[in-house]
């Protein structure tokens, strides 16, 4: 069990800055997900925690002890790789017990731990197989078995599910969640998939371009994104963001339509309005803030996605629960839920907090 602290951690390759001054405290037993687009530095950060990449600057501490210069083998951290990295020439049992073999733990203890891990993961029948004789999901389980057998201080996962098909991914996601509940260990999980992030994490760290954008619980990120990047990265379908002119308690679109946002203080001229598709109501054309013309309508059964075009504003996506009897070409009244609207300033930062004070 471990508390992990990153203080002003930096990473440079030559003159290229990959990570800038990362500050993060991870509590004992917490499940942290690092999420961001490819190239944002999330995998590099994970590998620095693992000790596979040297840390350029700053301090990295486990349980208060500085670990920058400690070799990976001495950090007592287990890692599950994207490629699983199973040793092809060893059978499942030996793959799982390899770390104990290296530490020269007694064979009997090793065997019993392997057996227990195999039971936990449903691999008992497969322990004598070589990795090449396993399916993708089974390999994934072995990789996890290899990690849990050591009872490490922390687990690292580097996009562990990205090589699985959709159905297996859901299953393994649940498995990982269950594992975390059972072991209660500190886990750091890297993914580019926001669904994995939202479902697994205690807290999510959103990274972009080498900077931490926001740290918070899944709901916080969904409800109170700190900036435009987080707002658009978290949540599916993506949040609508349209340019508006700010005013006192309202914003105006380019062609003069007024959207009442009573909580909003005077926020300057050029701002952007962010609204999630599920936070737009479809009303009678005479009642809405805006009039949208339905372009494409997708009936998903449980939900209806309506892609509308609003004059003077551009495309706006609407998602409603259940089946809405709309079709292409319909004129729809759209009402923005004021309590769920976000306003982003010219620098991309959310002005949301000011809004909440009133609410």
């Amino acid at each position, binding site marked *: 069990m471990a508390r992990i602290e990153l*203080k*002003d951690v930096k990473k440079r390759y030559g003159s290229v800055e990959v990570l*800038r*001054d990362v*500050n*993060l*405290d991870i*509590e004992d037993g917490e499940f942290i997900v690092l999420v961001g687009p490819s190239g944002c530095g999330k995998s590099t950060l994970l590998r620095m925690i693992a000790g596979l990449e*040297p*840390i*350029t*600057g*700053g*301090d990295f501490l486990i349980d208060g002890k*500085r670990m*920058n*210069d400690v*070799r990976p083998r001495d950090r007592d951290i287990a890692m599950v790789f994207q490629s699983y990295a199973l040793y092809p020439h060893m059978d499942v049992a030996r793959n799982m017990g390899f770390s104990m073999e290296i530490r020269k733990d007694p064979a009997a203890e090793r065997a019993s731990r392997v057996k227990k891990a195999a039971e936990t993961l449903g691999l008992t029948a497969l322990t004598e197989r070589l990795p090449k004789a396993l399916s993708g999901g089974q390999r994934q389980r072995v990789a996890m078995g290899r990690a849990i057998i050591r009872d490490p201080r922390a687990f690292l996962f580097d996009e562990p599910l990205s090589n699985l098909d959709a159905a297996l991914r859901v299953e393994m996601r649940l498995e990982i969640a269950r594992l975390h509940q059972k072991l209660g260990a500190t886990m750091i999980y890297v993914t580019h998939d926001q669904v994995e992030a939202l479902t697994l994490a205690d*807290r999510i*760290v959103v990274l972009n371009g080498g*900077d*931490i*954008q*926001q*740290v*918070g619980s899944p709901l*916080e990120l969904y409800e109170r994104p*700190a900036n435009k990047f987080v707002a658009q990265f978290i949540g599916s379908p993506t949040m609508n963001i349209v340019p508006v002119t700010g005013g006192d308690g309202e914003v105006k679109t380019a062609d003069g339509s007024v959207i009442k946002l009573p909580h909003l203080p005077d926020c300057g001229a050029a701002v952007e309005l962010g609204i999630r598709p599920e936070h737009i109501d479809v009303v009678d054309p005479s009642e809405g803030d805006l009039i949208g013309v339905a372009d494409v309508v997708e009936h998903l059964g449980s939900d209806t996605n309506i892609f509308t075009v609003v004059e003077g504003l551009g495309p706006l996506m609407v998602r409603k629960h259940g089946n809405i009897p709309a079709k292409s070409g319909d004129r729809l009244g759209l009402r923005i839920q004021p309590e769920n609207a976000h306003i982003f300033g010219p620098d991309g930062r959310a002005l949301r907090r000011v809004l909440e004070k009133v609410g």
Partner: protein
Amino acid sequence: MEGKAVISRKQNNVMPGETRARRSLYWQYMVEPFLYLSPAIVLIGLVMMIPLVIGISYSFQSIELLNPFNTGWVGFENYIDLWADRKFWIALENTFWWTFWSIAFQFSLGLGLALLLNTDFFGKKLFQALVFLPWAVPTFLSALTWAWLFNPVIGPLPHWLTALGILSEPYNIMGDPDLAMWGPIVANIWFGVPFFAITLLAALQSIPGELYEAAEIDGASAWQSFTKITLPFLAPMIAITVMLRTIWIANFADLIFVMTGGGPANSTQILSSYVFTTAFRKLDFGYASAIAVALLAILLVYAVFVLWLRKKLVKI
């Protein structure tokens, strides 16, 4: 919790640990590769690079082991002798023809073989192992065997050529200054075809099959598929292979040394065999080194020319 994990961008205050980190793990990351590399570096340095420099310096000295008192720096004397040496110019011309014909035949026969091996036929694996076999034959053995085959008394080739009407009588081809070079060239072709076939086969197999299917749907004939898809795809591989192989063949003296020793009347002497005979028989290291430096210079000019040509032609 959220309070602690703020997105702070502190000033660039250097943490106390930074220098230490650089010294330990960083130091280790810098030094570790050289632990694995050092034997190779030492060997190549001592046995190849230093002798290379010494070799160049020899070309400005007089070093004849048979004439030990006549040793010392002589400036460009070796090169002046070289310029006036008729044998050098003959060897230069021979090098050109030796390399040109060897490459031309090795390449075209190798391409043909690669195309054949890229199709399916019965017993392909065995066939492939057998046609590649010449490559495994030690050079001196190929040389001896081909010398035997060309022998007018006991070898079959002159007799067959006579029977086909190519020769008027079964005489010694390798004793005829006009034809002698063909002996080593044929042996070289025999030895070198597998190399080209293997390289080109690898390149052929990397061409995606869908391209041919698409071409077929578009109505291309087999010949059009070959010229419009196969050749352009192979071109980069061909260019680099031919260039490296040219240099290698120009340096390749073993076959000639064993089969003809450069004779008759220097008609098969190429620059590299001339280097070797000068060093080995006359023990005149200074002059041998001067010839070698000249060869190196020619090859360098050639390589630069080919690379320039490639840059001009490849416009992607």
